[in-house]
């Protein structure tokens, strides 16, 4: 069962002893592996929450709600929406940064979403296998302790790269409000050297949001599907940290 595991040595599950119950029926001990360490899980859910807030508020910044009535001093609708967007953006930035730092100290699964082993032939072979599995051309899925190669590719491009792009352009746009003396402008103002008209940066930031909508759609679908089809826990792993292999 475990032949396709990426790194068999590390992936040795604590194969629970097969015990017999009082009635002599064999109780099957499901093998589990500790994959996602606590910081990885915390970052995952905080980022997931922040991204949802960012998508909703970001959309409403581009397409604001219908006008409110009354004195301007009596409401702060756009102000609150923008505040939520900026706050969630900074939370995402901090936890994304924390996640990068954890990749240096965490287990090897924590590093998976930050690179693609482009030079390894075996990796691409397994990517192909995964594509065939999703195209219904393979009968049996391979099992992986961490992300499967296709998932790793998707996580790196669809999540890591896009979120990094959104954070960089997001802070650059934020620096328009904080001014050219702000640390945001000093750190991220170079974005406007690439696109001098910030209207373009707004547009690309907006397209990035839709790219992340697509990523989230596929990510959630693949997680649920794999949970059912690959006979290994996916969703609960992100809560408990443990991956369980079912027969």
């Amino acid at each position, binding site marked *: 069962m475990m032949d396709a595991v990426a790194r068999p040595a590390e992936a040795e599950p604590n194969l629970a002893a097969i015990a017999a119950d009082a009635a002599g029926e064999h109780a099957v001990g499901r093998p589990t592996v500790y994959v996602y360490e606590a910081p990885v899980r915390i970052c995952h859910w905080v980022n997931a929450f922040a991204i949802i807030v960012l998508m909703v508020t970001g959309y409403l910044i581009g397409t604001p709600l219908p006008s409110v009535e009354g004195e*301007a001093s009596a*409401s702060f609708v756009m102000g609150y*929406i923008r505040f939520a967007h900026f706050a969630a953006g900074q939370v995402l930035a901090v936890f994304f940064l924390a996640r990068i730092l954890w990749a240096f100290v965490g287990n090897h699964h924590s590093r998976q979403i930050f690179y693609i082993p482009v030079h390894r032939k075996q990796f691409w072979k397994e990517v192909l296998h995964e594509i065939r599995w999703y195209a219904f051309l393979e009968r049996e899925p391979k099992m992986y302790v961490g992300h499967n190669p296709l998932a790793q590719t998707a996580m790196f491009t669809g999540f890591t790269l896009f979120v990094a792009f959104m954070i960089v352009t997001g802070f650059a746009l934020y620096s328009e409000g904080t001014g*050219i003396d702000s640390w945001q402008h000093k750190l991220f103002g170079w974005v406007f*050297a690439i696109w001098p*008209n910030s*209207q373009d940066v*707004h547009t690309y930031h907006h397209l990035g949001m839709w790219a992340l909508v*697509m990523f989230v759609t596929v990510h959630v679908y693949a997680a649920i599907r794999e949970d059912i*089809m690959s006979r290994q826990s996916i969703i609960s792993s992100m809560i408990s940290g443990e991956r369980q292999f079912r027969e």
Partner: protein
Amino acid sequence: MGATTETFYSVIRRQGITRRSFHKFCSLTATSLGLGPVAASRIANALETKPRTPVIWMHGLECTCCSESFIRSAHPLVKDVVLSMISLDYDDTIMAAAGQQAEEILEETRAKYKGQYILAVEGNPPLNEGGMFCIDGGKPFVEKLKVMAEDAMAIIAWGACASWGCVQAAKPNPTQATPIDKVITNKPIIKVPGCPPIAEVMTGVVTFITTFGKLPELDRQGRPKMFYSQRIHDKCYRRPHFDAGQFVEEWDDEAARKGYCLYKMGCKGPTTYNACSTVRWNGGVSFPIQSGHGCIGCSEDGFWDKGSFYDRLTTIKQFGIERNADQIGMVAAGTVGAAVAAHAAVTAVKRLATKRDDAKQDH
């Protein structure tokens, strides 16, 4: 006009200003700049001895709206700038000399004030067909520009044309009109964008250079920080309506009459760096937003190519169709969603079929 070694002091004396008034002016300037008592005499000394800065004003592909704006400056009055502060040695549009006589001034200034004169460029050079789309004095403008730029102290790029390219560089840009900083790369260039720039911004930049003998502090894009470091949006008097979420939904609605924010009407104030909302136009009378129309972002790079002036979201043409980010995003996300749903359906059917097969085999 013509080349001159006159100082600021000799010019204002000729205009009837007394020496006493001149010293009062110097003391006042020193005080307002927060300088010590010695500075007043230093300023007086500089203005008495330093020759006025010679300025060469050239016109490439342009519409003269920069000049039109410039001559309407109220603070300072443009007559004071042209007649006393700078020595405007050459401006083919408004100078008396013409033809050979005018062209001689260029040569003269270049030789006499090597590395000291300011080259102000209105418009830009078209590079296509060897620059044949803009002939000035029998030669392509780009050649004249390069020659005059060689010995200039600095270059002022007036307006959106010289700074970014403006309408003549809008897609498909048949003449290959090119902003100054892409043609002249070895000189300090001050971009003063806008179509046209605000009159007081133009004279303000000139005043700064002649008063302090150096260039104003520039931002990352090469624009003077004092006028271009904030967006129209940041200093807009309608900003409270934006923060409150009060928008004009369509022209002439109740919200428009109440003076709500023009964000939804495509106002480019949030992405436009200029001083319109503080300095305003026509001697501080008004500016577009105050007159009920959104900002069109005329001081920004490629503002002609971002779709309608009246759309909030930029038109994207890269896909061969004209759509904005939301329309493209929704189609793409919808496609992914549909693909996921279809994939899920196929998975379910396959799974059922496989189970039935397995069940059959078991029997």
